[in-house]
Structures are given as structure tokens and as C-alpha cells.
């Protein structure tokens, strides 16, 4: 490691002000601090610091995403071979998924980080680590068939219009990864709905199985909730959907890790699920008696295991920058997201997945929610002073 450090120390002057590679300082700094925690010491305030930093925080989220990523790869292969009625081992499934998904991840990181570094250099600040997570969330929230150019477009859109136009990391008011996905959804609807969820690259000498349908649970639930895969399959993730969203079980595992480490807000995660479940129960009450398979009759927990509900609740709604920032506000924010998602799913058949828009919608309202919480604190203090 000493040699590496010496090398960095040797080349560093080139990147500093006045050096010939001055223009690449942000990139150099990003690599240097990736390799070595800097030798900076405290001055002025506290003399010791907690070991956690933004790199560790983002890395923790990546760890929490890994199970869904690996399962997403496996499921990509599984769904593919199923479509052709082929027997396949776990390894076959995983390998197929790996080959299909790695390019998406590489393109997402490449394009996004490139733009991040460009902006950091232009604005003269260090590269923020937020994109480590964003860059993973983008492919995980897309169908495996998404063309690479669209992933690149999403990544660039995400960094530039999702974040940098608002002033950079920490200043954006909507979840950048989700905003990028919404952009793709509305700009290229054909690529994000319909028969896009399974990679149907032809297999030599094989045809799709008879009566094959690539529809997701959400696409069929509206007409007949009993036509969805079994609750067990949906919970475990043996279903069609975006790469990372299918396995509720593994997402909950990630949630447990985020909550345990303190990186993810348990208030938001719990309240989103709670809001969705309560609204599901409410829908049961309102359900039309003459249509026994109507979505409103679906057991409330169906909404939590279908589509992107769990993925959104755990990895998207919890983005601290775009979520409510007060602890009380987080409860309200989460409950509203969950409830609104189910409402959208039930009352808007043209748009089956409510999670994405619901989170973005309440990202916008999060400052308002916080405003009321802050006002309550102010009023309490005012009342005390007047006594």
C-alpha cells in the first residue's frame, strides 16, 4: 500500500492548481479518497469524529441492495428459460442474468459518474458519493430488456436534471434515480410497459411456450386479482418485473440491514408499508359486491408484495435528501406514499404501478409536511414564552 500511496503523492502535484492536469483534479480526488481515507485532522470544532462518512453510508446501502441484485440476476435467467419451457440450473439462471445485467450497471455507473465528475470539476467541489447508490438503483428499477443507450440517457438525466440543476447533492427535492425512471417511462413508454419484463432472446430450436404471457402481476391484477401469481411467488420474487423489485423477502432483508445500521429510516420504511396496508384494508371495505375478483377485493397485503412497492419503500422513499427531514414528518410522508400508491393502483387501471409516481409526488410535498412539523415546534415555543 505504501507504494501506491507514494505513487499518488508523486502524481498529486500535477492535479493541483497550476499543475498541467488541473482540469482532472475532481477525478483524481475521487480516486485518491476512494483508495485512502485522507490524513485530514480535525480543527476548530470537535477533536474526534465518528468513523462513518458518506462513502461508508452509501456502501452500506449497496450491501443492502446486493441480495436483490443477485436474485434479480437469477430471476432474469429463470424467467427467460421458463418462457421457453427449458430446464435450467441455478447457475444457468444466474449466469444468464449476470451477462444481461452487468452491462446495464456498467453503463449506468460510467455515464452517471462521468457527469458527476464533470460537474464536480466545474463547480470546484469533491465528488459526492451519492451516485454509488443512484447508479445501482437505476438499472435495478428497470426491465432487463432496457437498451443500454436508454440507461445511459437515464443516468445523465438523473445527474443533470435530477440533481445538478438544483445545486448538486443534497439540494435536489426529488429522488434522482426515480426521476430518471419516470423520465424513461413517459418518454419511451413502449420500453417500460407491456412485454418487456423478460428477456426473450431466442433460444436455438425453441419457441415460446404455448399461451405465454409476459404480463406482470400488476398488469393483470386490475381485471382479476386472482390471476396474479400466488402470494408466495410474489413474496419470494418468482415473478416478472423490474430487475431488483421482485423479491419482497430479499428487499425486507435489505431493509433490516439498513434499519439495523441506522442508515435507512425505519420510520419511513414502516410507515410506507403501514400506509399501503391500511389503504388496502379500506379498499376491501369499499369493494363492489358484484365483482368478486375486482382488485378492491385483493387481500391488503397483496399490494405490499406486488410490483415495486417494497423496493420503493425501502430503497427509494428513504432517500434522506428528498424525503421528509423531520422525524414526525417521516411518518406522515411514509403513510401518504403507501396509501396513495394503493389508491393509484386501484383507481387508475391505465397506470398500474403507483409506487414510482407516488414517491415522486410526496417528494414534492415533503417540504410542506416538514413545514407543519416545524411550525408545531415553533408554536409550542411561542406558547411557552407567552405564559
Amino acid at each position, binding site marked *: *500500500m505504501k507504494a*501506491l*500511496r507514494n505513487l499518488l503523492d508523486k502524481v498529486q502535484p500535477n492535479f493541483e492548481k497550476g499543475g498541467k492536469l488541473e482540469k482532472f483534479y475532481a477525478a483524481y480526488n475521487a480516486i485518491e*479518497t476512494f*483508495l*485512502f*481515507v*485522507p*490524513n*485530514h*485532522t*480535525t*480543527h*476548530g*470544532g*470537535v*477533536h*474526534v*469524529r*465518528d*468513523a*462513518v*462518512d*458518506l*462513502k*461508508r*453510508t452509501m*456502501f*452500506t446501502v449497496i450491501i443492502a441492495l446486493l441480495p436483490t441484485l443477485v436474485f434479480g440476476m437469477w430471476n432474469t435467467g429463470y424467467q427467460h428459460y421458463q418462457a421457453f419451457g427449458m430446464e435450467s440450473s441455478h447457475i444457468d439462471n444466474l449466469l444468464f442474468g449476470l451477462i444481461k445485467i452487468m452491462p446495464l450497471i456498467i453503463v449506468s455507473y460510467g455515464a452517471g459518474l462521468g457527469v458527476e465528475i464533470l460537474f464536480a470539476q466545474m463547480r470546484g467541489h*469533491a465528488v*459526492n*458519493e*451519492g451516485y454509488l447508490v443512484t447508479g445501482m438503483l437505476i438499472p435495478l428499477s428497470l426491465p432487463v430488456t432496457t437498451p443500454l443507450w436508454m440507461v445511459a440517457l437515464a443516468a445523465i438525466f438523473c445527474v443533470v436534471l435530477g440533481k445538478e440543476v438544483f445545486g*448538486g*447533492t*443534497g*439540494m435536489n427535492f426529488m429522488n434522482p434515480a426515480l426521476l430518471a425512471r419516470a423520465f424513461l417511462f413517459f418518454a419511451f413508454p413502449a420500453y417500460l410497459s407491456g412485454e418487456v419484463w423478460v428477456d426473450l432472446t431466442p433460444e436455438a430450436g425453441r419457441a415460446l411456450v404455448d399461451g405465454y404471457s409476459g404480463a406482470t402481476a400488476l398488469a393483470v391484477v386490475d381485471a382479476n386479482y386472482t390471476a396474479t401469481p400466488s402470494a408466495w411467488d410474489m413474496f419470494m420474487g418468482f415473478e416478472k418485473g423490474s430487475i431488483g423489485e421482485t423479491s419482497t423477502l430479499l428487499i425486507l432483508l435489505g431493509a433490516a440491514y439498513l434499519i*439495523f*445500521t*441506522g*442508515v435507512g*429510516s425505519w420510520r419511513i420504511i414502516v410507515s410506507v408499508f403501514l400506509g399501503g396496508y391500511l389503504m388496502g384494508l379500506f379498499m376491501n371495505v369499499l369493494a363492489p359486491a358484484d365483482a368478486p375478483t375486482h382488485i378492491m377485493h385483493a387481500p391488503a397485503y397483496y399490494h405490499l408484495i406486488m410490483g415495486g412497492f417494497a423496493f420503493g419503500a425501502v430503497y427509494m422513499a428513504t432517500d*434522506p*435528501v428528498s*424525503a421528509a*427531514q*423531520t*422525524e414526525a414528518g*417521516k411518518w406522515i410522508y411514509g403513510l401518504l406514499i403507501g396509501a396513495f400508491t394503493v389508491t393509484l393502483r386501484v383507481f387508475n387501471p391505465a397506470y398500474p404501478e403507483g409506487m414510482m409516481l407516488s414517491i415522486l409526488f410526496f417528494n414534492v410535498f415533503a417540504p410542506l409536511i*416538514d413545514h407543519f*412539523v*416545524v411550525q408545531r*415546534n*415553533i408554536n*409550542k*415555543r*411561542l406558547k*411557552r*414564552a407567552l405564559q
Partner: protein
Amino acid sequence: MPSNGTINLRRGFDIKLEGIAPKKLTDLPISALVAVQPPDFLHVTPKMVVKQGDEVQAGAPLFHDKDHPEVFFTSPVSGEVVEIVRGEKRRILEVRILADKNATSRAFPRANPATLSREQVVNRLLDSGAWVFIRQRPYSLIARPTDTPKAIFISGFDSAPLAPDLGFMLEHAGSNFQTGLDALAKLTNGKVHLGLPANASSVLQQAQGVTQTVFNGPHPAGNVGVQIHHVDPINPHEVVWYIHVQDVVNIGRLFAEGVYRPERIVALTGSEATERGYFRTVQGVHLKELLQNRVNTDNVRLIQGNVLTGHKTNSNAFLSAYAHQITAIPEGNEYEFMGWLTPGFNKLSRSRTFFSWLNKNKSYRLNTNTRGEERAFVVTGEYEKVLPMDILPTYLLKAILANDIEKMEQLGIYEVSEEDFALCEFVCTSKINVQKIISDGLEMIRKEG
């Protein structure tokens, strides 16, 4: 005696460090050189009363505050004013006194403060120089004799990392602590509050004429600001006073024995202190007396106070007026390869992102490394976990950064002091200097008047 019962505080964090001071008291010989340092006192503009070469007794005025001429800063020892050290723009940094062997104090009439009027008590405190150890909230300034505080607060324990045991410090105070409390009781029409830890020593428990409140919980439960917030919070235009227990003892001695002898028991702590313990000396002592052969000096940071709120010093400096502890920890000016990626069994974090959570009771030899670079504010909910006050820390900080005075007032800036936010700064993922923001905000409000 009246009691407020117990207040349980859940939020906060105890930073467990190596190098706690054993309860062993050593008397230091009176140092040859002591100093009174005007920069120790916030917003005091010194106007000299003595000049170089003057002989002074303990309790004799050295300078007074230009804006509050009745507030005198006096010599802690008898001896000769040997040097007035000035810095940039001739700002006075130190008034150095070479102590003589006689250790004589100006004589003050002995009196039971309970029999004196408020005015007599105030004048005695101002005259002797003991006054400057009574401070006010908001702003942590020296109390103004013209104010009448709504209450006076004394924290009976220090919960900061490696903090001295105040109960132990009081063990040798005899009845002076109680006499000091009696004097303070004269200064307010309200109550004198004494905050106690769950396992308070008998000296503290037996204190009379004060309202006792027990505070249960992690640091910053011992911060006087946190205690004020929970017992009698400060509203706009209100003032409360506070004072350290050791200074209560010095005030007691002033009345009971008729001498000004501002003692300081200093706890020498930290992993780089080789001979730790409690050392009895005098305010403003030259640190060499205290530190020589008792701390490692190679790549070590010496701190007057604790690791959260103290200030950097060196063994050639003088003890600060409000310091009761010296901490020695290693500097952290080294790189760590992939440090953010390691399992981190040895890395202290309030979060559980490192595996050090496996061993909750471990004490750490923390160094001064920042553990990462400063970043934009991203992670929410962290500050709230370590601030046991009904304050919205993020919003208060934002109001300060936006120079929004009205919002700052609405969000309770009068109730806070930078030390209450020290843990917020410690846990901050983005490595933001939170205490600096708070002190800037307080300064803005103070100037606004």
C-alpha cells in the same frame, strides 16, 4: 430539600475513550508562572489596571472589561506582573504573573452570605474577581451584574468523554461548596438548580437551598444547557446564569475564609497521558508544571477541556479560565488504505455501519482524523438522535446558514449553546462543523441585540 425528581433522557451518546483519570488527587507545587488570558472570556475587551513590574496580591485587579467597567479580572496568586503578552493589533493575550512564595491574598471580611444583601454579595464577587466565573445563557458570556437571572443552574456532573468526576472534585471542598451555594442563592429571585447524575455523591446530594433534579442518560445529559432546557427553558429576553461547581467552592471560600484563592483541580485524561489523575493547582497555571513527564508529546494533540468542546493547546500554554480537564489523544494525520471499506471492528461509530457494534463496552484510542472529507448535507435524523432537547437541529442550522434571525429565534436559538451540538458534529456523516454554525448564529443574534 426541594426536588424536581428525575428526568430521563434517551437521546445522546457516550463516546468511550481510553484514558480515564483514576480518582487520585495530587497537589502541584504553586507554579512560578501563572497567567490570566483575556481571550478566555468571550467578548471582553480588557483595559489594564496594572502595568508590567507591579506587585499584586491574589484577588487584586489586573484589568477590567471596557464595556462593563465594574467587572474586574484579578490575579489568582500574589507576585509580580512580569509580562503583558500582546498579539495582532496589540490585542492582550496574556497577563503573566510571577508568583511569590508568600501566596498572600487580599483580605476580605468573613461573612455568612445568607446574612448579606444581594448588593453586598454582588460587590464582593465583583471586587474579588470571582464574578467572572458566573456566566449567562444565552451566549455563554460573563453574567451582567445589572441583570437578575430568572434562575441559576449548576450541573453536578460532567458527562463528556473522559470528563472528571465532579463529585470527587468536591470531596475536599468541605463546607465551602455549601457556602458558595448560599451566596449564589442571593443573586436570583428564582431558584438555584443543581443537576445530579443517577449515582450522585453525597456531597452533591446533601446540598441545601437548591432544587435538585436527577438527569438519567448519556452525554450530553450533564450539559447545563440541556438541564436548563428541561427544567426551566429560556424564552426570548430571559437570562439564566450558570457556574461550574469548582467555582462555587472558590466563592464559598471567599466568604467563609475571607481569602481569594481560586483553586483548580484539573483532570489529566486521554490515552496519551502517561500519568493520569486529578491535580490540584491554581487557575491560570503554566501547563508545563502539570504536563511535564505526564504526557507523550510525539504527534499528540493536547486539549484544554474534553475532545468534543475543548480547544487545542500545547504544554507551553496556560490553563484556561473555564478548563477543568486536559485531554491528550494521538493526532490522526495518516492515510488509511480503503478505510471506508474495512469491517471496522476497531472503528467507533454511533451508527452500526462498522462491526464495532459487536463490542459495545470497548474503549477506543481515537485520534484526531476526520474519518473522511466534508460533504454536502445528506443524511437526516442523525443529529436528532444525539440532541436530547425539543429543538429541530437541522432546521435551526438551516435558519442560521440563511441568516434568518426571526426563524432562529422561533426555533429556540436562545436555548442552545455550541457545546450542546458537539455530538451532532461528532456523528455528522458529512463532517460539517456544526458547532461553528451555532456559534455564528448566536453571535448574529447577540449583535442584533
